[in-house]
């Protein structure tokens, strides 16, 4: 007896998936509401293994959700709120349809009053908790949240993006930045063409986000701000709770006190004053100070700092710098970081050496702690202020056009140790002696006026210093100097990949090196005697031809017998290549000498011999590569079809990467050559 015939779509994979239309129907929502719910609850479509098995209809569906996910949404309390909202909208539209404007207005007015007939109020707290069961989960997902909120904090307000939302985003972002400053959690930052990337490490989680430059954002293409707004609504809730938790974890009160007046004057970070939760333990408020409250520009310390800076300038080797920083710490009388690892030295021989994570003896979070910065008006104040503060700087002054909250608006303040400038050097002043060293001693007037006793650097100095966790030499970053390349601190150097920080010679392959040398040799020859070069080139090309013939011989199948015999002979020749090559080269050398004699030119001996040797090496390399390729082909032939495909796919991506790297190396070689030529 035959079994019961099974209907399609009743069991198996088909039951596990649901199209979007089915989901919307099941939840009895409109599509925008469904979208909202999906965004908030973090429900996303899935790709079934086999679309054909899953789809119950003939038409190809595009989006599939897990049935279980949709069932989970069915119990969502927000669903009821959506329905109430729909009811309210219906009421208003019905009133408008009847021409009952006053009634519609009443309902609209009541929209803010849920106790009457208004819009339902909802919060996303429970959703946040559901999506991130632990705080660490929330931190892990903070990348997108921060990027989004920082972007919205910089958007112009429109009907789609209300000013209130922007203000709240900005506030949350500034609060978050305050936490990073206080906890010194900022690790890296990177100036890219898209904006400024920051990386912070909070409770062991690396968080990377992008902050746009402070310009008016251009809005291009069709961007649905309703979708973005839904995301932002959720992210604002998340960041609010995250901020609360972060603040309370370091004993601060959340939300921090916000000074509307200062904010109106453009104080930004300075508009907040942090409060300690239990005032007995610490001071009442811990406003973001510019240092004057705690110590002030104590002349002794200042002198010390100046001395240190002087030393730093003079001595560039690392050891000295390390000593200095130690000295600094002693001078300041700061508590030594107690949670640092101690070095275990083996006392007696015979024990195993246990590896320890290396740490530097300078605390990167106090990198700028002894300096007073002054920002010129053309520098971006917000990122600089944030980074400097996060790395320990207490006193930052800036031009008054940059807003409120500065340590000083006076450029001539004597306590300033560093000034960040980003303006070109006027040519006339340069001629007087615009050397980096000179700005200490010579007093200049006019547009390039500089104050003695302080270091002038371009903004990139700050970024490079924090990324390398050491103070970079300011000469490289002096105003008007062409800057060293700014490298991304997020790229982990992997083996075999191109690394711009390492010299080219370490990275290039054997073949490339040979090629380059050959080219060099040719170039030199071209500089020298042209006729010889031609000759040489001829020889080389002949050789290559020969090589190619050999190469073709392996694959060519339709040669004549006679040809083939020749080939065999050649092959035999190849086998005893070494001795023959030497003989050959000797013969050629002789030939060349004869020719030179006839034409009456000096004989280029040495270079030629060298070039010859290189040519030989190249040929050997080629031969080796060819053999390897043949070997590979042979091995590939033994693979099954499926595996061969996989292998080729892997090979493809690897080859692509290596091709890219090769291109980069070639470009760099060219550049270096040009540089050398100039020099």
């Amino acid at each position, binding site marked *: 007896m035959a079994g019961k015939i099974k209907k399609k779509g009743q069991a198996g994979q088909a039951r596990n998936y649901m199209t979007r239309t089915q989901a919307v129907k099941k939840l009895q929502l409109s599509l925008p509401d469904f979208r909202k719910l999906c965004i908030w609850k973090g429900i996303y479509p899935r790709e079934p293994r086999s679309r054909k098995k899953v789809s119950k209809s003939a038409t190809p569906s595009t989006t599939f959700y897990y049935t279980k996910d949709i069932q989970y949404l069915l119990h969502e309390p927000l669903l009821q709120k959506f329905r109430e909202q729909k009811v309210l909208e219906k009421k208003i539209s019905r009133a408008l349809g009847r021409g009952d404007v006053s009634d519609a207005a009443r309902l609209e007015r009541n929209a803010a009053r849920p106790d009457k007939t208004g819009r339902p109020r909802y919060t996303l707290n429970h959703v946040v908790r559901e999506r991130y069961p632990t705080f660490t989960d929330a931190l892990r997902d903070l990348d997108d949240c921060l990027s989004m909120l920082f972007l919205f904090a910089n958007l112009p307000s429109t009907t789609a993006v209300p000013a209130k939302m922007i203000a709240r985003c900005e506030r949350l972002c500034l609060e978050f930045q305050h936490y990073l400053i206080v906890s010194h959690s900022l690790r890296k930052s990177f100036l890219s063409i898209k904006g400024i990337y920051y990386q912070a490490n909070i409770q062991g989680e690396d968080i990377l986000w992008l902050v746009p430059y402070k310009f008016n954002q251009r809005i291009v293409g069709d961007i649905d701000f309703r979708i973005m707004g839904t995301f932002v609504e959720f992210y604002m809730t998340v960041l609010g709770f995250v901020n609360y938790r972060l603040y309370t974890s370091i004993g601060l009160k959340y939300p921090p006190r916000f000074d509307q007046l200062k904010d109106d004057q453009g104080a930004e970070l300075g508009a907040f004053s942090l409060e300690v939760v239990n005032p007995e333990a610490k001071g009442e408020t811990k406003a973001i100070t510019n240092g004057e409250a705690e110590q002030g520009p104590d002349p002794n310390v200042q002198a010390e700092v100046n001395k240190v800076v002087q030393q730093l300038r003079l001595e560039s080797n690392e050891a000295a710098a390390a000593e200095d920083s130690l000295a600094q710490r002693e001078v300041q009388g700061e508590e030594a970081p107690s949670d640092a690892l101690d070095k275990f030295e083996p006392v007696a021989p015979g024990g195993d050496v246990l590896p320890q994570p290396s740490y530097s003896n300078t605390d990167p979070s106090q990198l700028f702690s002894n300096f007073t910065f002054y920002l010129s008006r053309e520098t971006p104040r917000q990122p600089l202020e944030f980074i400097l503060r996060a790395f320990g700087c207490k006193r930052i002054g800036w031009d008054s056009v940059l807003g409120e909250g500065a340590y000083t608006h006076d450029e001539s303040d004597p306590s300033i140790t560093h000034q960040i400038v980003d303006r070109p050097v006027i040519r006339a002043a340069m001629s007087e002696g615009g050397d980096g060293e000179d700005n200490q001693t010579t007093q200049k007037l006019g547009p390039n006026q500089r104050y003695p006793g302080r270091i002038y650097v371009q903004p990139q100095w700050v970024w490079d210093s924090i990324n390398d966790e050491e103070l970079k030499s300011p000469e490289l970053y002096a105003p008007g100097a062409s800057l060293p390349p700014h490298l991304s601190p997020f*790229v982990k150097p992997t083996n075999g990949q191109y690394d711009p920080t390492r010299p080219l010679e370490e990275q290039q392959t054997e073949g490339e090196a040979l090629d380059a040398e050959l080219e060099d040799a040719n170039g030199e020859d071209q500089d020298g005697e042209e006729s010889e070069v031609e000759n040489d080139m001829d020889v080389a090309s002949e050789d290559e031809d020969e090589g190619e013939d050999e190469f073709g011989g392996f694959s060519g199948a339709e040669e004549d017998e006679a040809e083939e015999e020749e080939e065999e002979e050649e092959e035999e020749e190849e086998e005893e290549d070494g001795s023959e090559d030497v003989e050959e080269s000797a013969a050629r050398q002789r030939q060349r000498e004869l020719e030179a004699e006839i034409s009456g030119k000096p004989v280029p001996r040495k270079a030629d011999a060298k070039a010859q040797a290189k040519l030989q090496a190249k040929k050997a390399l080629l031969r080796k590569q060819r053999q390897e390729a043949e070997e590979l082909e042979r091995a590939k032939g033994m693979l099954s079809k499926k595996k061969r495909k996989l292998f080729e796919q892997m090979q493809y991506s690897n080859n692509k990467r290596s091709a890219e790297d090769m291109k980069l190396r070639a470009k760099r070689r060219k550049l270096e050559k040009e540089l050398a030529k100039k020099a």
Partner: protein
Amino acid sequence: MGPKLAEKKRKSRESDSESDDELANGLSDGVLSLSEDEGDYSPSDDDDESGSEATEESEGEDENEVEDKDDILSDDVPSDVDGKAEIDKLVAQQGELEITEPGVDPRRKEEEEGEGENYRIEKDANGGIRYVYDEIDPVYDSDDTDAQVPVNTIGNIPLSFYDSYPHIGYDINGKKIMRPATGDALQSLLDSIEVPEGWTGLTDINTGNPLNLSQEELELVRRVQMGLIPDDLEDPYPDTVEYFTSIEEKMPLSSAPEPKRRFVPSKNEAKQIMKLVRAIREGRILPYKPPEEREREEEEKEEVHFDLWQDEEPQPPNPMHIPAPKLPPPGYDLSYNPPEEYLPTKEEKEEWENADPEDREKDYLPQKYDALRKVPAWGNLVKERFERCMDLYLAPRVRKNRLNIDPNSLLPKLPSPSELKPFPTVVQTIFRGHEGRVRSVAIDPTGVALATGGDDGTVRVWELLTGREVWSAKLSSDESVSTVRWRPTKDSFILAAAAGEDIFLMVPTHASVTPALYQASRDVLAAGFGYATNGQQQVAPTGKEPPAKWARPGTKLEDEGVLLRITVRSTVSVISWHRRGDHFTTVSPAGQRSSVAIHTLSKHLTQIPFRKHSGIAQTAAFHPLRPQLFVATQRTIRCYDLQKLELVKVLQPGAKWISSCDIHPGGDNLIVGSYDKRLLWHDLDLSSRPHKTMRFHGAAVRQVRYHKGGLPLFADASDDGSLQIFHGKVPNDHLEPPTIVPVKMLKGHRVVNKLGVLDVDWHPHHPWCVSAGADGTARLWM
């Protein structure tokens, strides 16, 4: 009527200020009533209350009458509310002379006050001075109007009564009132031409005069016709006439006791109030606040923060949940000041710009700015964020296991080339001599001589290493020698060759053949003659044609060394010896039933083991160790047990047309060549399907052959003119798969008429092989 009026008057006297309305009403009532019945009025002049009451009581009937009249009147008056004013006017016109009653009161008051002035000064309720004027007494002369000229003196009779008279009625003086002149037709025409003011062309019914209507009258007519209110002066919606004063009275008009509900608090109201109180207590009703303030407060309420993760519990990650992948961190080329080598060249830039935005590998071009202040805003940032949002909620997430392994680890572990050696690589000797194709080659078991057979019908024996021809015999003039095979034992030097339907067995002369060996070989061939004759005698009586005839080939050939000829029914294409050398099998594909024959040399006996084949037999071979025979048809290979006479197994290589097969000396593996360019390796223990399929040839594979002398090699010969040498090591352990490594392609034979290499054979112990080519040569590869 009278007493009622009196009553009203009394009332007016009682109250200080009677409502004007009532007065006016009363007045008008009185006026009306007077106009109707003047006679009744006079007695009421001096009536007092009691009198009036008395008359009321005594003259009940009279009163009834009066009341009746009153009723009629009262009926009349309210019914004609609209035209009341008009009626009043009319009444005023008609009856003013007779009206005396309204004047009664003032006259009386005058007497009381005793003053001659037409007003008196009174004190009103507030003690102020109040002038009270006398009522105007409309006496006879007071308001005289001209008596109207009587227009009609004839009374209520039709005008037609006067048709025969020149006059119509008489005037007050008794004179005839002459009929108005009615002119003749001319006169009337003239009249009509001079239309006087208000002319209508109508005649007044009453007077007979032409009826002239004034403009107002015409308008009235028009309005009546239109169904409008006739008098446009008339206000259709006059102000309401207040019947009761809106001024609060000091004293109640009614002395009825106040109802309880006025002073007992309402239960319903209390209930309503309690409801509100409760709502306020519960906070459902909030005190009023301006909407902005309310909104702000509500927002603050929303922004309340607390430690959401106070009681956090780490949960095991849901295996079905795929966290959104993070965006990759920026690389060097995204820097505002990247190293120079990351900047695109002009071509790259152009290529990027010309490419469709979707095809671009990166959504940005690396750029270099020499100062931070020169970096502009990134235009696509919002769009990129938006796309990320779309990805987060709309992109299906799939967990992809990225193979982060070295692709080379996928490659099989091949033995190193040095391990694979030795294998033939180059041509050592070329054997030239055959005219036409060389069909078959074979190296003798000792490995010194090579036998070839060709299209020219000759069998030649060569010195293997030198390539010198040492012996040849022309077996057939018209048929080609399709195959040559040595007897595989070293105690003899016997070569089997097939040409057409004949199989020849010969003992070639060769330098290595000692006379003893030569004799032994001849003996082996001759041994069967006696036996064969016996056998034939036994067979003959059955009447059937014998499967083969064993005979001597004739003296000429016998002198050359060809000692035996076996003739079978159809052309033989394959000869295959048993390892002991006593049996060999031949295959003649066209032979149908008798296509596979097994010949016994010692008995000169030919047997046909199979009566049926599932296809055309292509080749056959003995199992090297067991008494089994493999027969290959076009599609399948069948293995028969020769002792039990049963089918052991069927192999299905999957080839379309098998050309050849060979069995590994170990007996467990088999290679098959096919005309559809394949070489197949079968593991007999594993499956009926091939273990490996090798497709390295561009044309049909004609011959496959294992090395039989202990080297792990096998070779195939193909029509593309090449031989391929493989390393094929069969491990001792049965569970391990054999290692098959292609090692060499030997190219050298020319392709003639799409035929390349036709046969291949291995040297018995060296890694050398010999190939037979369609170009008329045989080659030794070593």
